[in-house]
């Protein structure tokens, strides 16, 4: 057990930490939601995470994503991995720097318990939900976390094994800017669901 994990035991029992560490997480998309969810999950004790993202870091990502100015141009998935390991060096982080498409859904996230859907495009979100609706894996999907002065609350809708988190309205493709407070709060809510499920607070 490393120092980080010893520190976690100030807040969690050994049994709770073991439960959290036994859960295998998949994260689709390492942008605003995915990078923030990943940080929160690793800080919460999760140490087995698979990340898929095809993108490289741009200056316009730094307003909300967990990257830094020297990271511009680097691949997101691998860069995120390096930061997660700097929190918990014993975490097992698998990364794929590649584009995902709906025909390849059966080939990703094998043996994962909880999948975080954090892609940009609404059609990808729909494909994920429709694919996982008859599976036993848990899917936590982000939907609507943009906008300035938004009046819509970020809510969670649950349909069996599917959790949809967001305001369901604000659309980056319709000019709503993704800003850190709302993006991070949506990511935090998604991570909280994963943590609560892992510890049996949600069943």
């Amino acid at each position, binding site marked *: 057990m490393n120092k980080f994990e010893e520190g976690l035991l100030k807040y969690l029992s050994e049994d709770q930490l073991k439960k959290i560490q036994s859960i295998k997480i998949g994260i689709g998309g390492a942008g605003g939601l995915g990078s923030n969810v990943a940080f929160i999950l690793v800080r919460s004790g999760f140490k087995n995470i698979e990340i898929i993202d095809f993108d490289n870091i741009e200056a316009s990502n730094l307003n909300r994503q967990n990257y830094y100015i020297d990271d511009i141009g680097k691949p997101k998935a691998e860069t995120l991995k390096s930061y997660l390991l700097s929190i918990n060096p014993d975490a097992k982080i698998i990364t794929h720097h590649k584009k995902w498409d709906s025909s390849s859904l059966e080939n990703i996230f094998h043996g994962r318990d909880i999948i975080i859907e954090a892609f*940009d495009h609404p059609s990808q979100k*729909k494909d994920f939900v*429709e694919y996982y609706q008859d599976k036993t894996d848990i899917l936590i999907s*982000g939907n609507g976390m943009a906008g300035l002065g938004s009046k819509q609350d970020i809510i969670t809708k649950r349909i069996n094994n599917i959790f949809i988190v967001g305001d369901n309205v*604000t*659309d*980056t*493709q*319709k000019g709503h800017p*993704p800003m850190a407070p709302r993006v991070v709060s949506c990511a935090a809510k998604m991570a909280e669901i994963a943590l609560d499920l892992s510890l049996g607070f949600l069943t």
Partner: protein
Amino acid sequence: MLSMKMIINGQEKDFEPSLSLENLIDSLSQNKAHVIAELNGNIIKSSEWVRTTVAEGDKIELVTFVGGG
């Protein structure tokens, strides 16, 4: 029966009888390519919408996905 009542996203609405889920979603002018449909607690894949008949008293929730992640 001239019309049937269903609960759509928590609101009671009247529809013509013998409606498919596909017709119903079309009539609500949703952006179908970004919509998922929950019928009485279960998600119905969009490939099944045409074959799925909705009935009096059904509870339907439609969620439209938006961009951003």
